[in-house]
C-alpha cells in the first residue's frame, strides 16, 4: 500500500512539472497554447539526443536536462516571435488554430529529426538504485523527480507572490492595458513568462524522458493530463496545480493497482468528476466556460 502511495506521489509530481508551464502561460498570462505538449516532447527528445545509450553519470544527466530545458525555452521564444505575436492581433479562435498549427509543425519536426520509432533514455545508474523509504524500496529517481517538482512549485509561488517581477506579472494578468499605461514593459515581462513556462515544459519533458518510451505523439498525449490539472487545480492557481497533480497521481496509482481495467482512464474520470462537481477547480474563481 505504501509503495503504491509513494509511486503515486512521484507520478503526480511529474505531472505537476508538465502542467506547471501551462499554469503559468495559460492560467496566469492567459495565452492559450495548444502546442504546450509539443514543447514537453522537445525537452524529452533533446535529453535523449545528448546522452549515450549507456547509463550516464549523474552530473552529465543533470547538465543534459538543464540544456534541454534551456533550448526548449529558446525554441519557445522563437515561436513567440514567429507565431504568437502575429496571432495576438487576431481573435481568440485564430490564436487557438494557429497554436494548433504550431503543434503539428513541432510534432512533425520532432518526427523528422528523431523518427517515429520509440526511443528509450537510460537514467544514471546511481539514481536507479532503490532507496528504503517507510519500509518499502523506492527508485531514487522517483525521489529526485518529487524533490524537483517541490522546488519548482515553491520557486513559482515565491516568484509570483513575493518578488517585484511577480507583481508585474499579476498586474499584466489583471489588466494588460492598464499595466501598459502605467509604464510596465508588458511585452518584455510577457516574453519572460512565456520563456519560463516553456522552460518548465522542457524541464518536465527532460525529467520524464527516462520514465517512458519517446514517440513524437507524446506532444499530444501529455497535453491532456496537463490540461486536466489546470481544470482540477483551478485556472491560474499554482497551489491548485500541485494538489491536482498529486491527487491525479495518487488516484492513478490506486486504480492501476486495484482496478486495472479503469487505470488508463483515470485522468478523464477525474476531469469529468471535477467539471460536474466544481467547474472552477479547487482554488479557481473562473469557470471553464469563461476561459480564454
Amino acid at each position, binding site marked *: 500500500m505504501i509503495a503504491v502511495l509513494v509511486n503515486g506521489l512521484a507520478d503526480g509530481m511529474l505531472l505537476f512539472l508538465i502542467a506547471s508551464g501551462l499554469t503559468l502561460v*495559460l492560467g496566469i498570462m492567459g495565452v*492559450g497554447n*495548444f502546442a504546450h505538449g509539443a514543447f514537453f516532447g522537445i525537452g524529452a527528445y533533446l535529453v535523449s539526443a545528448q546522452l549515450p545509450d549507456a547509463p550516464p553519470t549523474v552530473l552529465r544527466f543533470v547538465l543534459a536536462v538543464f540544456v534541454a530545458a534551456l533550448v526548449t525555452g529558446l525554441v519557445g521564444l522563437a515561436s513567440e516571435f514567429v*507565431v504568437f505575436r*502575429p*496571432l495576438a492581433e*487576431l*481573435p*481568440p*479562435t*485564430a490564436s*487557438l*488554430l*494557429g497554436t*494548433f*498549427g*504550431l*503543434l*503539428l*509543425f*513541432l*510534432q*512533425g*519536426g520532432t*518526427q*523528422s529529426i528523431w523518427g517515429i520509432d520509440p526511443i528509450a533514455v537510460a537514467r544514471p545508474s546511481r539514481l536507479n538504485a532503490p532507496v528504503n523509504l517507510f519500509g518499502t524500496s523506492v527508485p531514487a529517481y522517483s525521489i529526485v523527480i518529487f524533490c524537483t517538482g517541490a522546488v519548482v512549485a515553491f520557486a513559482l509561488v515565491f516568484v509570483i507572490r513575493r518578488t517585484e517581477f511577480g507583481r508585474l506579472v499579476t498586474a499584466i494578468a489583471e489588466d494588460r492595458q492598464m499595466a501598459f499605461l502605467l509604464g510596465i514593459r508588458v511585452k518584455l515581462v510577457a516574453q519572460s513568462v512565456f520563456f519560463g513556462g516553456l522552460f518548465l515544459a522542457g524541464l518536465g519533458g527532460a525529467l520524464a524522458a527516462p520514465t517512458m518510451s519517446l514517440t513524437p*505523439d507524446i506532444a*499530444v*498525449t501529455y*497535453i*491532456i493530463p496537463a*490540461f*486536466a490539472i489546470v481544470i482540477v487545480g483551478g485556472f491560474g492557481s499554482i497551489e491548485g496545480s500541485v494538489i491536482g497533480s498529486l491527487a491525479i497521481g495518487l488516484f492513478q496509482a490506486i486504480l492501476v493497482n486495484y482496478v486495472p*481495467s479503469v487505470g*488508463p*482512464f483515470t*485522468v*478523464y474520470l477525474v*476531469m*469529468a468528476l471535477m*467539471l*460536474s462537481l466544481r*467547474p472552477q477547480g479547487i482554488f479557481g474563481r473562473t*469557470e*471553464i*466556460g469563461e*476561459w*480564454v
Partner: protein
Amino acid sequence: MGTTAVYASDKGFANEWIRRHLRWIAPLAVVAIVAVGTPYVVPIGQMTLAQTVMIDALFAVSVNLLFGRAGVPSFGQAAFFGTGAYTAALLSVHTHQSIVVLVVAAGVAGAAAALCSLVTARSSGLAFSMLTLAIGQLAYTAAQTGGFFGGYNGLSGIPFPQVGSHIFVDTYAVWDYVSVVTGIGLLMLLYIWRSPFGYLLVALREDPHRAAGLGVNTRLIRSVAFTVSGAFAGLAGAAYAYTFQAVSPGNLFWTVSATPVVMLLLGGRNYFWGPAIGALVYHSAIQLASGATSNYNLYIGAVFVVVVIYVPGGILSLGQSGWHALQRRPGSRSTVDPSHTVLTEDSAA
C-alpha cells in the same frame, strides 16, 4: 424583384421555378456530376483516393457545422467518426442491409455525441477544444483496451455493402455506393446549414450573450449542434468502414480529428463547401508530395500557421474577394445582395 418578374413572364413558368430553386438544384447537380463523372475521369488506381476524398469531405463539413457555423472548435470528432466505423463493423456481421447499418451507426455516433455534450456544452474556446481532444483520446484508449473491439488490430472482414439483394462488389461499385451515401449526407448537412437552426448557430457564434438575452437556450443549441455533427461524423465513419473493409483504433487517433480541421481551414470555414474543397486540395497535395516525404505534419503545420495568419478565410475567400473585385469594376452591373455578404463574410475572424 421587378426585373425577375418581367424576366420570368418572358421565359415562362419552368424558368421561374428553376431560378427560385437554383440554390438547391445547383448543389444536387454538383453532387450528381461528381458521383457519376468521377469513374470516367479518375484512373482505377486512384478510385480509393477519390472515395477517401468524399468521406473526408462529409467528415470535414460535419466538423465545420461546429467549427465554422457555431464557432466551437472541436478537436475530438474522431471519437464519433470511430464510433460510426466500429458500429458499422460490428453490425455488418448481423445484418447485410447496409442502409440499416449506416442509419444505426449514425444514430449511435449521435447518441455518443449527445452524451459527451453534457460535459462540453458549458465550455467554449480553448477549454472546449481541450475537452473534445480529451474525449477523442478517451475513445482511442477505449477502442484499444476493449477485447470486444478487437484490441490493437481492430476489426476486419467487413462485407461489401448490400442494398436489397444487390451487392456492390468491385471498386467502381463501392464508389457508386459511397458517393451516393456521402452525397446525400452532404445535402442533408446543407439543409441544416441553411435552416433557421443553422442561422441560430451563427447568432451563437457572433454573440452568445445577446443570443441568450433574446431567449435562446445556448447550452441546448450547442448540444444539439454537437449531436448532429457527431451523427454525420459517424455516417462518414460507417462509409469508411465499407470502403476499406476494416477499422482499427488508428481511426480514432488524434490525427484523425486534426485532418478535418486542416481541411476546413484550408478551404474556408465560413463557406459550406469550404471543407469539401479543402478535402480535395489536402488529399491532392499529399498525393503529390508522397514521393518526396512521408512526414506531412511538419509541412501541414507550417502551411496551417501561414493560412491562419494571412488567409484566415481559406481558399474560397480568395475566390470571393476576386469575384467582388471584378464586380466593383466601373461599368459592371453589381448583383451582390448585401444581406448575403454580411452572413458569409468572415466577420468572426
